[in-house]
C-alpha cells in the first residue's frame, strides 16, 4: 500500500480551514409523488471524508445522485471546486461514484473495468496499463487484470469497483453503501483499509451508509439525514456523545428516551427521579440515558426492575429491564456482574451519562 497513486497537493497549510471542494446549497430534489431532498446545504472540504448516515428513504442516495448529475435538481446549487454544476452532464462532472452493488461491466474483465474511465479520457494505452496495474496493487489485487468479474468474490468486486472509481482521479469520490453487501468480518477489515487509503491518497470522499459503525469508522465528519433533511452534522464523537435530537438518538440505537421536568438538577421521569448534568436549565426536556448510565445497585429505596433478557455484546452485556415504574430500560453491565434473567435489581443513574435533548419537534 506504499505506492501513492496521486501525490497529495501540499497547497493546504495544516490547521487552516480548507475551502469547500464540494458545496451544496439549498438542494431540493423532487420525484413524482414526494420530495426526496428538502433544501439540503452541505460543504465537503478537500481531503475530507464525510459520511451521510440515515435510514432507508432518508434521501442519502439521492444526495449522491444529485451531485453526480444522475438526478435533476429542482432548486439549489451544486458546486464542485467552485463551479456551478447546473446543466453539466454527468460525464463531464469529474466525480467518481461507487455503486451500491458495484455495477461492474459484466462483459469486461477486471482490467477493462478499471481502465474504463481512463479510456473515456483518452489516456494513452501504455499509461492506462501502468495505472491499472498500479491501482490493482493498491487495492490488493495485483495481476488480476485478465480475471472475469463474475469470478470474483464480493470483497474482490468491491476492490475492483474502488479501483475503477479511483482510476480517473475524481475530484470527489462518492461511495453508495460501499460495504453494504459484504459479510461483517470483511466489512470491518475493509473499512480500516479504506480509511488508510483515502488518507494516503488525499481523496475527498462523500460516502453514504445506513450502518453507523461503518460511518463512524470511516468519516472525519458524519451527516445524519432524516426524510430529506439534515438532522445533525458533526464529528463521529460529537454525534455519538451528543445526539442532536430524539430521532438521531433513536437512529443510533438508544432506547432509554423519555420526557422529563427538571428542577434544581433533578429530573422527574417515569422511572423516578434522575440526576442531570449540573448546567441543565429548569423546565421540560427530553432526556437520553445511555445504557452505561443505568447502574445496578443494592441500595435501599432504589427503584426496582426485573431482568427480561440479556444480550452479549462482546465486552459487556446489554440488559433489557422492565422497571416497576415507567417504560423498558436498557443497561450496560460488565460481563462478570450481569444478573440472571428473572432477577430483580435496584436502579441508579449516572448524571454524566444523561444527555439533555431539545423537546421533540415535528418535522
Amino acid at each position, binding site marked *: 500500500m506504499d505506492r501513492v497513486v496521486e501525490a497529495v497537493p501540499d497547497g493546504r497549510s495544516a490547521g487552516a480551514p480548507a475551502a469547500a471542494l464540494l458545496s451544496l446549497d439549498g438542494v431540493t430534489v423532487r420525484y413524482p409523488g414526494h420530495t426526496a431532498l428538502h433544501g439540503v446545504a452541505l460543504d465537503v472540504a478537500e481531503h475530507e471524508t464525510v459520511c451521510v448516515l440515515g435510514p432507508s428513504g432518508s434521501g442519502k442516495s439521492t444526495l449522491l445522485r444529485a451531485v453526480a448529475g444522475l438526478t435533476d435538481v429542482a432548486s439549489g446549487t451544486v458546486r464542485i471546486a467552485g463551479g456551478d454544476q447546473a446543466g453539466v452532464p454527468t460525464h463531464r462532472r469529474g466525480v467518481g461514484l461507487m455503486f451500491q452493488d458495484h455495477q461492474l*461491466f459484466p462483459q469486461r474483465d477486471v482490467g477493462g473495468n478499471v481502465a474504463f474511465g481512463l479510456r473515456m479520457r483518452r489516456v494513452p494505452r501504455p499509461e492506462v496499463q501502468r495505472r491499472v496495474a498500479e491501482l490493482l496493487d493498491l487495492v490488493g489485487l495485483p495481476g488480476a487484470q485478465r480475471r472475469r468479474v463474475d469470478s470474483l468474490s464480493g470483497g474482490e468486486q468491491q476492490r475492483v469497483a474502488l479501483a475503477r472509481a479511483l482510476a480517473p482521479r475524481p475530484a470527489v469520490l462518492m461511495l453508495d453503501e460501499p460495504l453494504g453487501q459484504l459479510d461483517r468480518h470483511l466489512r470491518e477489515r475493509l473499512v480500516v483499509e479504506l480509511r488508510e487509503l483515502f488518507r494516503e491518497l488525499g481523496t475527498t470522499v462523500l460516502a453514504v451508509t445506513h450502518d453507523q459503525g461503518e460511518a463512524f469508522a470511516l468519516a472525519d465528519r458524519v451527516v445524519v439525514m432524516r426524510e430529506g433533511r439534515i438532522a445533525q452534522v458533526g464529528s463521529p464523537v460529537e454525534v455519538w456523545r451528543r445526539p442532536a435530537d430524539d430521532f438521531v438518538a433513536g437512529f443510533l440505537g438508544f432506547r432509554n428516551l423519555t420526557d422529563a421536568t427538571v428542577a434544581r438538577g433533578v429530573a422527574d421521569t417515569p422511572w423516578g427521579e434522575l440526576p442531570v448534568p449540573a448546567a441543565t436549565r429548569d423546565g421540560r426536556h427530553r432526556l437520553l440515558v445511555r445504557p452505561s448510565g443505568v447502574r445496578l445497585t443494592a441500595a435501599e429505596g432504589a427503584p426496582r426492575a426485573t431482568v427480561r433478557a440479556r444480550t452479549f455484546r462482546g465486552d459487556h452485556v446489554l440488559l433489557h429491564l422492565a422497571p416497576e415504574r415507567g417504560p423498558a430500560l436498557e443497561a450496560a453491565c460488565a460481563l462478570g456482574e450481569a444478573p440472571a434473567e428473572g432477577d430483580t435489581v435496584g436502579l441508579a443513574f449516572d448524571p454524566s451519562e444523561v444527555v439533555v435533548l431539545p423537546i421533540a419537534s415535528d418535522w
Partner: protein
Amino acid sequence: MTRSLAVRLALLAPPLAFFALFFAYPVAAIVGRGLRADGAWRFGAAGEVLTDPDLAGVLWFTCWQAAASTALTLALALPGAYVFARLDFPGKRLLHAVVAVPFVLPTVVVGAAFLALLGRGGLLDELWGVRLDNTVWAILLAHVFFNYAVVVRTVGGLWAQLDPRQEEAARVLGAGRFAAWRRVTLPALAPALAAAGLLVFLFTFTSFGVVQILGGPRYATLEVEIYRQTAQLLDLPTAAVLTLLQFAAVAALLVVHGRLVRRREGTLALRDPATTAHRPTGRAQWALLGGVLTVIGALLVLPLAVLVERSLSTPDGYGLTHYRALTGTESGTLAVAPWEAVGTSLRYAAVATVIALLVGGLAAVALTRRGRGPLRGVDALLMLPLGTSAVTVGFGFLIALDEPPLDLRSSWLLVPLAQALVGAPFVVRALLPVLRAVDDRLRQAAAVLGASPWRAWREVDLPLARRALLVAAGFAFAVSLGEFGATVFIARADSPTLPVAVARLLGRPGELNYGQAMALSTVLMLVCAVTLLALERLRPARSTEML
C-alpha cells in the same frame, strides 16, 4: 420535452417512416382503391361483403381452425414444454434446436412436406392408402408442426426457471402431486400459456401457404380468400373489406398479447434453468419422455424426412435426378433454372436482413426505456406487419409504389423491402427484452466514469446485446428467406425466390415438377435449418421468448 425524449423520437423517425411508407401507405392504398369508386367512398360495399354467406363460411372456418389448431398445439406441446424444462436427457440441446426448425421453415416447404406425407402418392397413401390432403386434418397437423416450438419455448422457457421449491412447499403443506402442479405451477405459467396460445392463434388465424397448398378448393382462411379475391377474381372491393376485417382482428389479438406479455414481465421467483432440470425418475416420467419423443418424431421429424426422401426418389430408384434437373429449364415451369432461385433468395434475404436490422434495431434502441409517455404502444404497433395480410402488403406494393418519386415496381429492391417488413418485428422482439434487461445503473456507472450517452450505449448496451443482435439477424434472415405471401406478388418472373419457385413447381402437374419441388424445398429447409442451428449456439440462455 426532455432531451432524451427528443433523442428517442429522432431514433424512432426512420423506423416509423419505413413502416409508414412500406406498410401503412401500400395497405391504405389498396384498401382505398377497393372502397372508393368514382371519387366517392362506398362503405355500402362493406355491408354487402360482410353479409355474403360465402364470407360467413370463410370467417367461421378461419376462426374454428385457428382455435382447433391452438388447442391441438397446446395439448401436444405442453408435455414437451415440461420435458424440456424439467428433465435432463442425452441429446436434449440438439432436440431443442430441431424442434425450432419448423418455425422458421417457409410455409411452402411445410405444405410440400405434408403433401409428401399425407397427400396423393404420399407416404401414408403408399403404405395404407390413407390420404388426408384436402381434409382439415392436414391443415391442423401442419399448424401443430409449425407452432410446436412456440409453446415449448415460451411456456417451457418460463417453466424451466420456476423454482421447483414452490411446488415442494405445496407438497409439504399437504397437496398431492397433481394438486401442487395445478395450484402452484399452473397459475405461474398461466400468462406464458395464454401468450403462447394467443401467438399460435394469431399465426394460424392468418395462415396462408399451408392452407393454400393443403386446403384444396374446399378450405380457405381469410388470408387465402383475400389472395383469391385479389389475384384470381380481381375483386378489389371485397379484398379491401376482408383486409380491414383481418386487420381489426389481428390488432385486437396483439393488444391482448401485449397485455399478457407485460404481465409476464412481473414478479416470479426465477432461477437459473440449469439448476431445475433432473434425470427422469419413475415410470411416469419415462413414459412422458417417450411420448414426447414419439410426438416430435412423428409430427416434426417425419414430415421433413419424407420431404427429403421424396426429393431423392425417382422412377429408377433413389438418385439425385431431381437435384440435377434444378440446374436446367427443361420443365418450362419457370423462366429460369430453379437452381438460380437459391442465389436470388440468399441475395434478397441478405439485403432484407440488413434493412430489418437497421429499422428494427433503431426502434428497439428508441423503445428501450419502457414508455409511459408518447412512445407507449409503439412496440405493439411494430408487430402489426406480422399479422397483416402479406398478400395485401404485396399487392399494395404493386399499386402504391409504382409512381415517381417512388417507382419501385421494376426494382429488385421491392422484394427485400417487403421481406424486411416481416423481419423487422422479429428484430425488435429479439433485441428489446435484452436491452431492457440492461441495468440502467451500468449506463450510469459509465457516465460517472466519463462516457457520453452515445459512448455509454456503445460501451455498455452494444456488447451486452451483441448475441441478441446476431440472433435477431438470423431470425430476420430465415423469415425473409421463407416469406411467401407478399413475395409471390412482387417477385419478377425471371428472378423467383425459393418459396415462389417451389409453389410454381407444385402448381404444375407432372412427376418431374413434383420431384423438383421436393428437391428445392429440401434445399430451402437445409438453408433455414443451418441458420437456426448456428443461432442456437448463440441464443442467450435466459431468453424465454420465441418472439
